[in-house]
């Protein structure tokens, strides 16, 4: 990977879609309306666990202005699967989550929906639908779910990944996974120091400011159009097709600007219901969630219980590690327990380890992906224990991590050897950073922690078109949350040698864009970027052929340098032709030029992050304040550095919120008590300092520019960085998040 120089990549142009966003012209999911449009409202379960005995919709259906009413019967139970990054998603569960078929599995679980001429009327009608339930005891935690005699959510459930010897019979354990290497007992026998703790983290929500929203129109000809806010228009199209038994070619999904997702807007919650309501009413239907519905009924990430044990030699070398990971899945299988197991010890070479990970059903909303799903929780555990080992053995926290850090050629816990990775360089950058050596005041503590994420590859397509004036357009199907459109424009500009302002990036609907997997998994700059570069190079090759035609020479005699076709190998003294020159002759030389590429890339190669947090603690009230924060990360190559910094700063803020104040609070009946931004306490502007960033660039050979995924790693280190800073400031090792003032004060009271 020769260290090439770039003219456009690496600069910080204004994003092309920025003007609409700062002037209020950008359209998000709820900003779209159609003539004759109806408004939909959902009827949601008041119980966390119950059997549906009957649904009487007559009172609602008879109201003037009510045009359609649907229940679970209107969405057939399907056994279809949907191929996604994580593999085959079970559409049966997705369908049951849209409108319950027999049982309600969490408070807020939709059971019916109404479409009416106004939102107030739809809500009034929804309140008149009479649902008869047989209440069942709710399962509220992992401990309760696995206790003998626990209520069973799905009596047909079979634990996936369970060895054949394991007992069958009703269970709430949906899946088990294990990873093992070496001889665990001998490893711990060799250890001079063993540290072991139980860690607990609370369920947290992605917290995007834009609630889910869509408009669906089911035409009398069976053609369906959906406008929605989503991370994956193709995922929405294929999920709706699978669930409703419609041909994918009959569904067109038009992504709006998306008001944040972080993994929470990959699944479908509204779209299939809106389609069915539209079919029954013959009119377009708009559905917009309230903030309360977003909290109660869309994916938080798992609450977890983690038992972890580390063994180390006196010289700081890690020799053994074991972890038992219990992740709440919510109503249906599918927590990120597997990813947690794979990330657990991924930063360090540990010769002997045993990890078991469980996916456990509870009566809460089904969890969804939340930025490096599964990784923050295990990082909280392993980085806290490493902090203890370094204190006990008297090691500098960076030294002990350097001693055990993985490098190229080392084998990851999940098997294969690492390619080129930048973990050591990140550690060395931290060692050199002034923050690591700054003075601390009274009641202030400093914590450091590292984090890992895989970064996905998957399918992407791109189309690059050259206009006759020499400007260009690039089309992809990836909704742009974090500035990927301007990054794509930079790549096209770099390849064609034209200014980035002359490239127009567009996020197109599923009829226009080539198939592409979701915006997520930190993959868009990597995989879709690679397709964009390839498509731009396809254009460049066509321009060489056009120059050859103009010069009447074989194409081999046309070179390309700095955005110009140049004569080579004795092609005579032709004057180089710029993109603009060739574009002006397109119609003469064969017609329009369209570059096209599609890829299915292997995983992008992991990225490592390290965060340093200074925390001031008020020991009389348990309150704490982040005074200084630094995020260091191997980003491979920063295409648009401002937005790479933005991912690191945003991820850090979410991680800090997860560490200090964010949690789902349930009462004994399984009802969430804080479904709003008042008591679900996300960090506000006055809670945080400036978040300094250091971009380490160890190129990833799988991408033409060395790009590595950057979006997800930054949420991983903050949990332990804050917890280790709390330990440094108070002397107490807190092992349960969030570190809210009551919990901190209780710990302080017990310790003195």
């Amino acid at each position, binding site marked *: 990977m020769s260290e090439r120089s770039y003219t456009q990549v690496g600069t910080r142009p204004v994003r092309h*879609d920025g003007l609409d966003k700062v002037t*209020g012209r950008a359209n998000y999911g709820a900003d779209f309306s159609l003539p004759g449009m109806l408004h939909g409202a959902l009827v949601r379960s008041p119980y966390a666990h119950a059997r549906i005995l009957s649904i009487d919709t007559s009172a609602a259906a008879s109201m003037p202005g009510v045009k359609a009413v649907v229940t679970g019967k209107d969405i057939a139970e399907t056994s279809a699967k949907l191929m996604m990054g994580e593999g085959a998603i079970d559409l049966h569960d997705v369908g049951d989550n849209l409108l319950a078929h027999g049982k309600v599995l969490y408070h807020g679980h939709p059971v019916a929906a109404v479409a009416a001429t106004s939102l107030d009327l739809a809500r009034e009608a929804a309140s008149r639908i009479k649902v008869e339930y047989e209440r069942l005891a709710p399962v509220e935690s992992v401990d309760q779910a696995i206790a003998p005699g626990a209520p069973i959510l799905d009596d047909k459930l079979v634990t996936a990944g369970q060895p054949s010897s394991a007992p069958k019979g009703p269970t709430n354990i949906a899946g088990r996974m294990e990873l093992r290497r070496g001889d665990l007992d001998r490893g711990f026998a060799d250890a001079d120091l063993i540290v072991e703790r139980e860690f607990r983290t609370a369920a947290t929500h992605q917290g995007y400011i834009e609630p889910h929203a869509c408009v669906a129109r089911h035409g009398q000809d069976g053609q369906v159009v959906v406008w929605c806010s989503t991370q994956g228009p193709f995922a929405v199209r294929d999920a709706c097709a699978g669930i409703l038994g419609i041909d994918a070619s009959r569904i067109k999904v038009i992504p709006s600007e998306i008001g944040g997702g972080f993994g929470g807007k990959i699944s479908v919650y509204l779209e299939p219901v809106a389609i069915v309501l539209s079919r029954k009413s013959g009119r377009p239907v708009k559905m917009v969630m309230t903030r309360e519905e977003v909290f109660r009924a869309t994916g938080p990430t798992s609450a977890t219980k983690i038992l972890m044990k580390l063994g180390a030699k006196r010289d700081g070398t890690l020799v053994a590690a074991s972890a038992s990971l219990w992740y709440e899945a919510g109503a249906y299988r599918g927590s990120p327990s597997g990813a947690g197991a794979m990330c657990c010890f991924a930063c360090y070479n540990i010769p002997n380890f045993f990890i078991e990970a469980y996916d456990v059903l509870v009566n809460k909303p089904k969890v969804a992906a939340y930025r490096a799903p599964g990784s923050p929780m295990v990082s909280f555990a392993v980085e806290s224990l490493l902090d203890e080992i370094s204190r006990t053995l008297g090691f500098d926290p960076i030294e002990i991590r350097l001693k055990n850090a993985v490098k190229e050629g080392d084998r990851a816990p999940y098997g294969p050897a690492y390619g080129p990775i930048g973990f050591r360089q990140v550690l060395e950058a931290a060692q050199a950073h002034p923050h690591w050596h700054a003075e601390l005041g009274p009641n202030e503590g400093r914590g450091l922690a590292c984090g890992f994420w895989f970064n996905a590859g998957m399918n992407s397509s791109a189309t690059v078109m050259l206009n006759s004036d020499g400007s260009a357009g690039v089309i992809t199907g990836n909704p742009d949350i974090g500035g990927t459109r301007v990054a794509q424009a930079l790549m096209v500009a770099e390849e064609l040698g034209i200014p980035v302002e002359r490239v127009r990036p567009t996020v197109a609907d599923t009829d226009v864009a080539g198939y592409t997997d979701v915006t997520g998994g930190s993959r868009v700059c990597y995989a879709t970027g690679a397709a964009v570069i390839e498509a731009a190079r396809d254009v460049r090759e066509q321009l060489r052929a056009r120059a050859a035609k103009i010069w009447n020479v074989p194409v081999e005699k046309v070179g390309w340098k700095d955005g110009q076709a140049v004569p080579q190998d004795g092609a005579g003294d032709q004057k180089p032709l710029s993109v603009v020159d060739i574009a002006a002759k397109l119609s003469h030389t064969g017609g329009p030029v369209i570059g096209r590429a599609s890829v299915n890339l292997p995983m992008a190669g992991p990225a490592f992050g390290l965060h340093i947090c200074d925390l001031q603690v008020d020991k009389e009230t348990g309150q704490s304040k982040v005074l200084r924060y630094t995020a260091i990360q191997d980003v491979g190559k920063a295409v648009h550095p401002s937005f790479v910094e933005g991912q690191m700063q945003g991820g850090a803020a979410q991680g800090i919120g997860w560490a200090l104040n964010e949690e789902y609070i349930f009462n004994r009946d399984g009802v969430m008590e804080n479904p709003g931004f008042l008591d679900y306490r996300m960090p506000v502007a006055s809670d945080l300092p400036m978040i300094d960033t250091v971009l380490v660039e160890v190129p990833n050979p799988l991408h033409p520019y060395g790009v590595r995924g950057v979006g997800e790693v930054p949420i991983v280190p903050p949990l332990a960085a804050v917890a280790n800073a709390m330990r440094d400031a108070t002397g107490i090792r807190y092992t349960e998040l969030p570190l809210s003032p009551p919990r901190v004060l209780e710990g302080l009271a017990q310790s003195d």
Partner: protein
Amino acid sequence: MDTIRVQTTINGEAVEFLCEGHETLLTALRDRVGLTGTKEGCATGDCGACSVIMSERLVPSCLVLAPEAEGRTITTIEGIANGSGLHPLQQAFLTHSALQCGVCTPGFIVAGKALLDANPNPTETEVRYWLAGNLCRCTGYDKIIRAVLDAADHMRRSQA
């Protein structure tokens, strides 16, 4: 259905709309007047995405009844740019890449304008506390605060 006729001024223009007594100013702006730049993030006054300026006061339009707009002057995000040019805050948000998804940006820019009108030379801390009612989940606030401080500096210099 006894609707109420409201006569008000939005972004410097006389506007009239019909609404119901319990409708909020937010839904009236979006659904009756068609100005969808003001966003709903929570409808409980906790996220700031619906911020507008009503008679020189920064308010959450989701907690204002639409009829209360009668006879008042309202500024929404659509009225921040003055005709041809962008407001310095809008320009600063672009040059600082102070937005990612952008759904909170209208609220931040309207709140930022109210701040700079009241305090042309705020410190970082004053900016952070003034904007504490505007939630952002993407940026971690860093670049937003820098953009507001930069815009304030620019406006002070251009008035000097």
